[in-house]
């Protein structure tokens, strides 16, 4: 058993990467496997620094492929194990993630997005949104929480473990380099104090019992001989996925109730949007925000309702419409006009959004 560091509510002024390491410990995570990449390094650094106190485990692997697959090994051994990555690391870790997806392994990974495609920048982006939701050669049987600051990082890192082990879909906490590197105050707590019990993490390999006496040997595989066998398996997953979705979906509305211009944004950009909404409201423009927190699965029904109510929609992202694509699929049939404010790999500021919404309102008035 690992030693928990946070036993009572503690307000701290940390970087987001530090927050994640603390959150993993609070969730009683036992092992981290990883390969360095900016901007997630300090998760590992903090985790390593704390090892004498936490008595947890750590392995620095030879690359992200190994990090992903050894994390799978740790999980199959029945440990609450996790990893973290970003950018090109996230790309090659899809190899392991697609296996976790096929084998329903409760894989937990913090993704700290950086610019793309390719090595691009080490700084910030929302360009791994699609990759994290749907990467690999599969159908996206995954759960993805998109966070918007340090309290989220703490809350959702803890939650990710429970979601993963409860539903057995690979679960990602999608953040970014800003969140990882920035400092802001955050309240750390013992999950127990919030009524959160950690899901058990039964071993798949070397489970209790003697083989042939108490139980059969476990034979795990990800390969099928027939197409039909594969489809049968995946059709079952789809049923589980749909059922899980209703329980897991999360979103946040900010002054969306009476919004004429509805901003749809996720992660840190949603925070800029909140600043913008306040400024716009101050200017007499009825703006509001719909922020999906689970971007996979998307909270489809509330989103459709919000869009239906609005006169105009603005999608804004630090990417070229990766969230927008996923949303628009689910919004088909509605006719509320939309515009976009996409800045590939660059932070969207409140000012950017204010300016854009002002022109939208202007144009609308001119029609």
């Amino acid at each position, binding site marked *: 058993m690992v030693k928990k560091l946070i036993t009572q509510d503690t307000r701290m002024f940390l970087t987001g990467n530090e927050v994640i390491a603390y959150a993993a410990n609070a969730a009683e995570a036992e092992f981290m496997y990883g390969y360095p990449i900016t901007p997630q390094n300090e998760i590992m650094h903090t985790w390593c620094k704390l090892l004498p106190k936490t008595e947890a485990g750590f392995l620095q692997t030879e690359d992200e492929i190994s990090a992903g697959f050894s994390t799978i090994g740790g999980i199959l051994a029945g440990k609450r194990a996790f990893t973290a990555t970003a950018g090109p690391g996230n790309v090659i870790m899809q190899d392991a993630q697609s296996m976790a997806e096929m084998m329903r392994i409760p894989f937990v990974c913090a993704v700290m997005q950086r610019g793309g495609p390719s090595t691009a920048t080490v700084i910030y982006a929302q360009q791994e949104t699609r990759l994290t939701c749907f990467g690999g050669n599969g159908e996206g049987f995954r759960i993805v929480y998109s966070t918007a600051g340090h309290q989220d990082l703490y809350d959702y890192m803890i939650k990710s473990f429970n979601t993963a082990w409860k539903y057995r879909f690979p679960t990602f906490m999608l953040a970014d380099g800003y969140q990882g590197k920035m400092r802001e105050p955050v309240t750390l707590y013992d999950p127990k104090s919030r009524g959160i019990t950690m899901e058990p993490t039964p071993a798949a390999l070397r489970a209790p019992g003697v083989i*042939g*006496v108490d139980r*059969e040997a476990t034979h795990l595989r990800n390969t099928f001989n027939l197409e039909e066998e594969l489809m049968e398996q995946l059709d079952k997953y789809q049923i589980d996925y749909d059922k899980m979705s209703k329980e897991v979906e999360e979103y946040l509305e900010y002054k969306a109730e009476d919004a004429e211009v509805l901003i749809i944004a996720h992660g840190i950009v949603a925070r800029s949007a909140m600043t913008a909404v306040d400024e716009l409201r101050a200017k007499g423009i009825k703006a509001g925000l719909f922020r999906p927190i689970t971007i996979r699965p998307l909270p489809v029904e509330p989103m459709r309702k919000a869009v239906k109510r609005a006169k105009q929609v603005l999608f804004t992202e630090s990417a070229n419409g990766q969230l927008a694509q996923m949303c628009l699929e689910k919004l088909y049939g509605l006719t509320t006009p939309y515009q976009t404010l996409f800045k590939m790999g660059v932070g969207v500021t409140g000012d950017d959004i204010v300016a854009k919404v002002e022109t939208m309102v202007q144009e609308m008035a001119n029609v």
Partner: protein
Amino acid sequence: MAEEIQYKGYKVADVAKGKADWYMFTDLCKGCGLCMVKCPKKCLKWSKEVGLYQTPCVEPDPELCIGCGTCAMVCPDSAIKVVKK
């Protein structure tokens, strides 16, 4: 747990001058013939009986077979068993 599995096949009794019985599990034999080559007495021949893939199994000449078990050890599919008496 695991139910008893029934094995089909044939027996060549009293090889090695009666000191051993030689068994073939036909549902395991794939007819590769590797055992034939390794038999020190070169006494294995193709059988009339067919195995898993409808290909011929093997059987020893009981006169020549010395019951050494090499064929059994070599067989990738454990299709042969030699029981010393």
